[in-house]
């Protein structure tokens, strides 16, 4: 299904990848766009969103709100909570977050099986090229880290013929925002029960600028794809039939959870946070 792009250095044709860059787009809008590109188009895409507003909590597809989020402060401060379409954990995103999303047809990368760990390994190598010179870069379980500190969280969604791998990168973060999140029950081994400030790090302490980072990503992708910048306007179409599954939880949803908190602990399944 992949469209052949221009010939690469070795003469092999690189598949086309359309690049959409945004800045400060609300995360809900970004996720809706991603779902539409995943489910309703046949192209390969890279979406980069540099910073987002307003600060929003984003949970994975099956996260339990009461276990992952401090609901009372969230309600009090009216922090939006979004449940996204991909798996994975909970993050709070803001102006300091840089998002990179890769959407591919399953045949786009030769030899890559559309399974979570295979895709994770491929992306780890891609980002290794971007980050190796700035610090001791590691793919630790499902996270990107400098040494033992996480700066990028990943999630995926795999459909019949396509897959998405998206990352929220902590260029910078507000320590106070982390207080809206609980420390998840299930966490990667290397976290070793550290709290947010000891577990995370800020990319800006390792790299000179956001554009060095995003340019690096585009360059690394360019080794495997023919990257073509695409205007956002041409991407947005009148596809009104499509209903994305990424949802914003309403104030009412959250209030219901608070009031039913007493009974919700019964028969709770361990869900990976």
């Amino acid at each position, binding site marked *: 299904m992949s469209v052949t792009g221009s010939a690469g250095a070795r003469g092999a044709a690189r598949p086309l990848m359309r690049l959409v860059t945004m800045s400060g787009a609300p995360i809900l809008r970004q996720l809706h766009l991603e779902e539409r590109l995943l489910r309703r188009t046949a192209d390969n895409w890279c979406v980069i969103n540099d910073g987002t507003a307003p600060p929003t909590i984003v949970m994975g597809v*099956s996260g339990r709100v009461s276990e992952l989020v401090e609901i009372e402060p969230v309600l009090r401060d009216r922090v939006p909570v979004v449940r996204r379409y*991909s798996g994975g954990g909970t993050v709070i995103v803001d102006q300091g977050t840089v998002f990179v999303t890769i959407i591919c047809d399953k045949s786009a990368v030769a030899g890559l099986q559309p399974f979570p760990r295979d895709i994770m390994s491929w992306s780890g190598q891609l980002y290794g090229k971007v980050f190796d010179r700035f610090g001791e870069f590691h793919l630790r379980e499902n996270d990107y880290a400098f040494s033992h500190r996480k700066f990028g969280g990943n999630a*995926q969604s*795999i459909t*019949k013929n396509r897959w998405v791998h998206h990352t929220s990168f902590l260029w910078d973060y507000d320590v106070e925002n982390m207080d809206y999140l609980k420390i998840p029950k299930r966490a990667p081994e290397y976290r*070793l029960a550290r709290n947010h400030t000891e577990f995370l790090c800020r990319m800006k302490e390792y790299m*000179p600028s956001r554009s060095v980072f995003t340019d690096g990503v585009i360059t690394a992708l360019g080794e495997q794809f023919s990257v073509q910048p695409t205007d956002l306007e041409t991407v947005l179409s009148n596809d009104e039939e499509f209903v994305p599954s990424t949802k914003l939880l309403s104030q009412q949803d959250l209030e219901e959870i608070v009031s039913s908190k007493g009974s919700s602990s019964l028969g709770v399944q361990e869900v*990976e946070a």
Partner: protein
Amino acid sequence: MAAWARLASRSRLRPSASGVCGPPRASPPAPPPPPRAGCAGPAAPPPPPLRRLLRLPQVRSSSAPTTSSLGDETVQRWRCLGGERRWLASEASAAAPAGEAAELVEVPLAQTGEGIAECELLRWFVAEGDQVDEFQPLCEVQSDKATIEITSRFKGKVHQIHFGPGDIVKVGETLLKMIVGDSQIVSPDNIFPSADKSLGEESVVPSSEGNIHSGTLSTPAVRHLAKQYGININEIVGTGKDGRVLKEDVLNYAVSKGLCKEQSSSLEESAGPVELLKEAEPLPGVPFYEDKKIVLRGYQRAMVKSMSLAAKVPHFHFLEEINCDSLVQLKTAFQNVNKDNTMKHTFLPFLIKSLSMALSKYPMLNSSFIEQTNEVVLKGSHNIGIAMATTHGLVVPNIKKVQSLSILEITKELARLHEMASHNKLSAADIEGGTITLSNIGAIGGKFGSPLLNLPEVAIIALGRIQKLPRFDDDENVYPSSTINVTVGADHRVVDGAMVARFCNEWKGLVEKPELLLLHMR
């Protein structure tokens, strides 16, 4: 895929004239193999395990099957499958295209990746009773941090769903049961006792002893393996359930026939061709030296990475000799006043402290270089790393803020880090944040080194062993002097020879005359 098609065309089971399939009465009946079936899996899965089908003999639609019209063996088979199945036969055939036998297929959750044992079911796209096409998405599961659509391998009808949203499904557990038409079923040769008259082969029932006359029970992969060895699979005695021939059976048979050398029991699961490598026969009396492969992990792997990066930096090395006579006296003095028997005084803490004092004067050596912006970060803390050789490999934990530590505190912290390192218990904090590194390689041996930088630092110091060498004193008399060779490695993009030389002079001065340390100490 070609293999499947081949098997399908060969083993299509057609109902006999009477409409009832049954085993020949001559052979003793045995319980039929339990149903196991093909997989629903993500669209590009690895080859699926063999599907065993629960075959329901086709029944003429005009009459419901009754006990009298079927052989005892068939009824026994039905009973062994548990519960009433008769109603399924008619329902199954109703679901299948006319004239074809219908199969009830159990569809398990396939592997979604190495080491993933279970997934969470998120939602169903189909309901019981729905007709589904091949490759149509059935449900969505979550595995690791991915949501994955599971698609159907068959065209058929959803009969029974086994899990609901939120349930955890183990890989291999049955997700759902489907009723599938015969035309697309692929079954291995003669797997069931039902007669396949069109092929003219004797139908078989696997006996309890596992003797198989023709039509051996086995998977396509095992048959392929037997073919590779040029073995007639029918000659092999199967040790699997119901006399099934397993991979081990083929290999053991091959070994016994001298077709291959004995292999270890842990064989990779693969349907690919087997290499028949003839190992050189060792000559009697001559020792057989084997290569050994070691996978680098942990500290060793980290070293591959860090040293590859270090190789990109232009290093230069500077050698100096330090007279340690005063240091030796100092150490003896420390040891004499030491009331704590558990603590051992060595030279290193003193060298570390004096190094820190020299760094205060030459902060460029305690820095980090940012290539992209041509900036040098002069690090505020002196976090002096000490290279340690552990059984697991080389590791460099560092002592934080040496400027604010006394020599005694440095000694204690050094002992703690040694302890942690030897038990592989160093924390991330211990290893991170170093600003300069000391390698006391001389403790093991050696005079000079050309140490490689521990990036992103700009300097590293290797200490050779203390040697007793003849040197001249102030009165030009020869005396035995405790001397240590020090090699400083530095990043020549940031630091030049003159700076290193001056720094070294400063440090050497403090070590050779410890009273200066006292003078400048804060």
